[in-house]
């Protein structure tokens, strides 16, 4: 039930995809000349009559008058002129068409190859971009240009068509129209010269147009259309919940890169397509080939290009690479499996994908393997009974000869023959010396050790050769009759044969162990690179660091120059210089379309860089560029895969830092907002308190003045006066605050006695709060300090006012002045109020403090102490809140540097 629903959802999604972006209508023909272009133009004219906005993107009439006539009525987009190698060629103006954005664009010849230097290598890529832009496209294509049918066409006609169109393009298909013409009529048309053929290809194509070929192609075209109609019907039925006609079954295609991998991919893809099943292509890397690959990477050996093992291996890798590229083009997944046991690797992969079918090519079957049931086919049948196994027989016998250079190639490596000879000779020498002490059977163990030694150091083949040499040496030197290869005694025969068997088995085991290690190492290198990247990215705190970490990790893992641009930030600087404007165009394209471009791709290929998109969930975050050494012609699938996974991780890290920075911005905004509202609230609070008293007192006098006695009236008038002064002080505080906050405060220092400042502040305070008692404890005869007198007086006043507010009635505020550390002045203002909890002491200087305490904040912890801090800070002093003396109340301690005290002393002494 669940699976069915999922399938239905997939189908609906598929439909949706076809509806929102542009849709593709294909006019399919069996051969050139059947009238595809004509049919397309006629249909376009019909649509134009219905008022649809149809534009000819590109249509080649090849000078045929009938086609020309039909085309004439349709709006034509001017073609783009492209200069290539001195010739002026015409191409479709893709950007013009995108800008024009018609409802339907006519684009002839889907399989056309664009002039080098165009944005895309192939026209079908242009069409994909048009479709992405929401433009419906009408196009024509011949059956032989379909990627998946390429081999079949080759088989039928013997002509290899190089300009193929990947089947994946047809996923966007809305409609497929078969333009059909019986073979005989077509040949007639051909003979009448009505079919346009390029001059140079005319001869080759003559063979193509044989009646039998054309009939076969026609049938193929019909089959293809029928299949698409079938798939379409199936999808629509599923979309409407009519129940699946087919059950999705994954098809696993296994290739080994030893000839015809691409053929296998096409065959498997076709099979999957017919079943409407998803499919993937895998190859198994055993340590053997990885070991050989390592050899090729060894710089010492790079020169010995004659090394046929390496060459063979390279060929194999390239074939797999090509097959993988093809598979991706056809819409399949690809993966490299690492395992020494091919059968197990395939079965695991099949199980992981829920595959029911495994497609393999016919394997080279060694006689021995067949006897012992050791061929891949046999093993798969035995161990994978649940799977449907399809063995595709390749058209030509798979090259058996491949094995031969394999063997010789291995013998040609420098180290191995030496090792084999040394081991064999050494074993013989030791055996000769030890013969007196050991028995004949024991001597064989000496040789066995040599074989195992070689096997553990090299590969299977060396072990076998060593075993053979040791066997011969053993026989020749030690078995009676000596110095001949004859063996006289029966026991001797048994001994040497058993020795041979033991040597072979031990050698095989040892070499397999080594292979496993090598295979693991190959798999590990990927994991290590990823781990290394992860570690570096984890440390990156911002985008710049992500870019730095990412590029350096890419550089060290892929041995290529790396460049990155994420959210407009690019780096590293060294690589940025190597990115030309041409490269940037490719980079922009990649970022915009979320697809790779540049070198090793089909898009904007003349860039030296390979650009990969950095994606977040949906939209492109940026682009990563990799520039491999010029000599590197191809990219191995391992490198491709590693690069892709690394870029993906980098994208995630970039996204993470982006989110973090967004959070940070939000936090700062919030903080500013908090400060603003704190200030507002504090201002409104500090202004309102005196205002309340003034308004209330004035109002009382106005309304009830005549009901009250003269003392009460006088008292209210006093209130108005005092509160007015208080208001003035608040405003002064605010102005000070603003000045302090704007950093524009200049201290006008003067020499003044601290006792004078305290006296002034006390007088001001007592005028306002007559009942407050203030006790002074000032060290006598303190020298004057060099400060801004008005500001310090204000600070002292604020602190004392604050203390007075917290003091219980009748309790004195204590002001104590001490000189500490010779050049500092310490002023303690203590109250005997409720005190401040430890954790809040630091915060009372905080502007937020008064707000968060609500109405209670009016005791003067609003702006007052913040201003004190500002003033004292400007004098390079500090303010702190401490518990009061004898454990109750609070002490606010101001510590001021003496300022010019020393210079004052020296001034008095008459020196500068």
């Amino acid at each position: 039930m669940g699976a069915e629903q999922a399938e239905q959802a997939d189908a609906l999604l598929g439909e949706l995809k076809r509806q929102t972006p542009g849709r593709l209508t294909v006019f399919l023909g069996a051969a050139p000349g059947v009238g595809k272009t004509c049919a397309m133009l006629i249909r376009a004219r019909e649509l134009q009559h219905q008022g649809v906005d149809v534009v000819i993107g590109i249509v080649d009439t090849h000078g045929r008058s009938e086609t020309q006539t039909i085309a004439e009525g349709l709006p034509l987009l001017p073609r783009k002129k492209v200069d290539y190698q001195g010739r002026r060629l015409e191409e479709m103006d893709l950007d013009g068409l995108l800008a024009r954005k018609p409802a339907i664009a006519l684009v002839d010849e889907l399989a056309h190859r664009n002039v080098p230097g165009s944005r895309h290598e192939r026209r079908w890529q242009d069409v994909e971009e048009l479709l992405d832009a929401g433009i419906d496209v009408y196009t024509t294509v011949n059956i032989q240009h379909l990627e998946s049918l390429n081999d079949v066409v080759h088989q039928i006609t013997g002509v290899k068509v190089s300009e193929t169109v990947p089947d994946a393009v047809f996923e966007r298909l809305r409609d497929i129209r078969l333009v059909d013409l019986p073979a005989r009529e077509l040949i007639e048309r051909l003979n009448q010269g009505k079919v346009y053929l390029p001059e140079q290809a005319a001869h080759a194509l003559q063979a193509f147009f044989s009646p039998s070929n054309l009939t076969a192609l026609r049938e193929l075209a019909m089959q293809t259309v029928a299949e698409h109609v079938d798939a379409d019907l199936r999808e629509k039925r599923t979309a409407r919940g009519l129940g699946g006609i087919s059950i999705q079954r994954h098809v696993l295609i296994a290739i080994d890169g030893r000839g015809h991998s691409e053929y296998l991919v096409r065959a498997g893809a076709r099979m999957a397509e017919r079943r409407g099943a998803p499919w993937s292509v895998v190859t198994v890397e055993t340590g053997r080939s990885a070991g050989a690959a390592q050899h090729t990477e060894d710089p010492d050996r790079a020169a010995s290009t004659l090394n046929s093992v390496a060459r063979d291996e390279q060929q194999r890798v390239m074939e797999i690479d090509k097959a993988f590229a093809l598979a991706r083009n056809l819409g399949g997944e690809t993966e490299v499996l690492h395992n020494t046991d091919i059968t197990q690797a395939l079965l695991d992969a099949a199980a992981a994908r829920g595959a029911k079918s495994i497609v393999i090519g016919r394997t080279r079957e060694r006689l021995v393997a067949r006897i012992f049931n050791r061929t891949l086919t046999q093993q798969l049948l035995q161990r994978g009974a649940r799977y449907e196994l399809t063995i595709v027989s390749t058209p030509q016998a798979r090259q058996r000869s491949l094995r031969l250079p394999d063997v010789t190639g291995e013998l040609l490596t420098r180290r191995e023959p030496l090792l084999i000879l040394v081991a064999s000779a050494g074993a013989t020498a030791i055996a000769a010396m030890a013969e007196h002490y050991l028995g004949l059977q024991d001597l064989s163990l000496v040789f066995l050790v040599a074989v195992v030694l070689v096997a553990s150091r090299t590969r299977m083949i060396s072990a076998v050769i060593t075993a053979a040499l040791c066997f011969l040496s053993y026989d020749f030197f030690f078995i009676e009759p000596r110095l001949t290869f004859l063996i006289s005694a029966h026991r001797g025969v048994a001994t040497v044969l058993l020795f041979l068997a033991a040597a072979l088995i031990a050698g095989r085991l040892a070499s397999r162990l080594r292979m496993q290690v090598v295979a693991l190492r190959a798999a590990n290198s990927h994991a290590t690179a990823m781990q290394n990247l992860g570690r570096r990215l984890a440390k990156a705190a911002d985008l710049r660091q992500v870019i730095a970490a990412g590029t350096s990790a890419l550089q060290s893992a892929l041995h290529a120059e790396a460049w990155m641009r994420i959210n407009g930030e690019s780096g590293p600087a060294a690589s940025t210089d190597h990115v030309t404007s041409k490269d940037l165009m490719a980079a922009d394209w990649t970022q915009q379309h979320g697809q790779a471009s540049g070198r090793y791709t089909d898009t904007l290929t003349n860039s030296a860089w390979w650009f990969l998109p950095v994606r977040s969930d949906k939209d492109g975050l940026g682009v990563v560029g990799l520039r491999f050494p010029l000599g590197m012609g191809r990219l191995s699938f391992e490198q491709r895969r590693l690069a892709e996974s690394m870029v993906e991780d980098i994208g995630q890290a970039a996204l993470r830092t982006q989110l973090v920075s967004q959070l940070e911005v939000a936090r700062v905004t919030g903080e500013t907002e908090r400060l603003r509202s704190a200030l507002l609230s504090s201002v409104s609070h500090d202004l309102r308190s005196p205002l309340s008293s003034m308004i209330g007192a004035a109002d009382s006098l106005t309304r009830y003045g005549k009901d009250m006695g003269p003392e009460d009236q006088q008292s209210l008038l006093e209130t108005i006066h005092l509160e007015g002064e208080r208001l003035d002080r608040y405003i002064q505080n605010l102005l000070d605050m603003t000045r302090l906050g704007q950093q524009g405060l200049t201290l006008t220092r003067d020499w003044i006695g601290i006792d004078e400042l305290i006296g002034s502040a006390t007088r001001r305070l007592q005028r306002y709060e007559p009942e407050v008692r203030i006790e002074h404890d000032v060290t006598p005869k303190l020298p004057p300090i060099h400060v801004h007198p008005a500001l310090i007086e204000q600070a002292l006043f604020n602190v004392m006012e604050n203390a007075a507010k917290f003091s219980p009635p009748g309790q004195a505020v204590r002001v104590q002045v001490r000189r500490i550390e010779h050049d500092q002045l310490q002023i303690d203002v203590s109250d005997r109020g409720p005190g401040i909890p430890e954790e809040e002491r630091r915060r009372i200087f905080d502007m937020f403090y008064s707000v968060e305490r609500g109405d209670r904040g009016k005791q003067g912890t609003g702006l007052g102490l913040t201003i004190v801090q500002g003033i004292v800070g400007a004098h390079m002093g500090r303010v702190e809140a401490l518990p009061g003396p004898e454990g109750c109340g609070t002490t606010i301690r101001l510590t001021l540097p003496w300022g010019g005290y020393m210079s004052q002393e020296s001034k008095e002494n008459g020196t500068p």
Partner: protein
Amino acid sequence: MGRPDQANPGAPAARVLIIDDEPQIRKFIDISLRSQGYATLLAATGQEGLTLLASKGSDLVVLDLGLPDKDGKDVLKELRQWSRVPVIVLTVRSGEDEKVALLDAGANDYVTKPFGVEELMARIRAFLRTATRGADDGPIYDDGVLKIDLVQREVSVHGQVVPLARKEFSLLSLLVQQPGRLVTQTQILREIWGPTHEEDAHYLRILVGKLRHKLGDDASDPRYIATEPGVGLRFIAKERQTA
């Protein structure tokens, strides 16, 4: 103007407790109240206020929210545990959420600083009037224009009977019975629609609109029903012309 609130000059003066730490504010409220014939008690801290209330008693409390020793709201909560004396809160905050919270915590009304003394006096009068008012006031409100007979359920404006729907009358009588006092939205909704509709403020908005329309009242310049936005309604009692 005289002393309109002292209905019985022979009776002992109503006593108001003022809890505020600002001496100047304490002072002018004290002077104003005394000038109008009330007795006053003054406290600078919350604890002092509570002690005074417990020991000497008071007919009304004016409570400032910003106190040095404890938060005004805590004082209010403590007070409400053992006293039902009307409390008018002085606050510098003007957000209605805060006001609603205060009213929920047990305050009867509030005044936002800075305020005119008459505003506070009107509030104090509204509470002390009902407190001193007895049955003699009768179930009839009449200010010469608007006449409301709560027993006969009859309302007239300029002598013309205004037909009121049942809910409209309920709302009017609820407000009229507490003239000058703030009646919270929640309270009204609960009284008229029942406890399940305490959140449905829009019911009330519609009902008040209809009632105002029928009484010839204007929401932007209310003669009878004033809205305290987001908090509640208040019936503006006019001086009576006939009792």
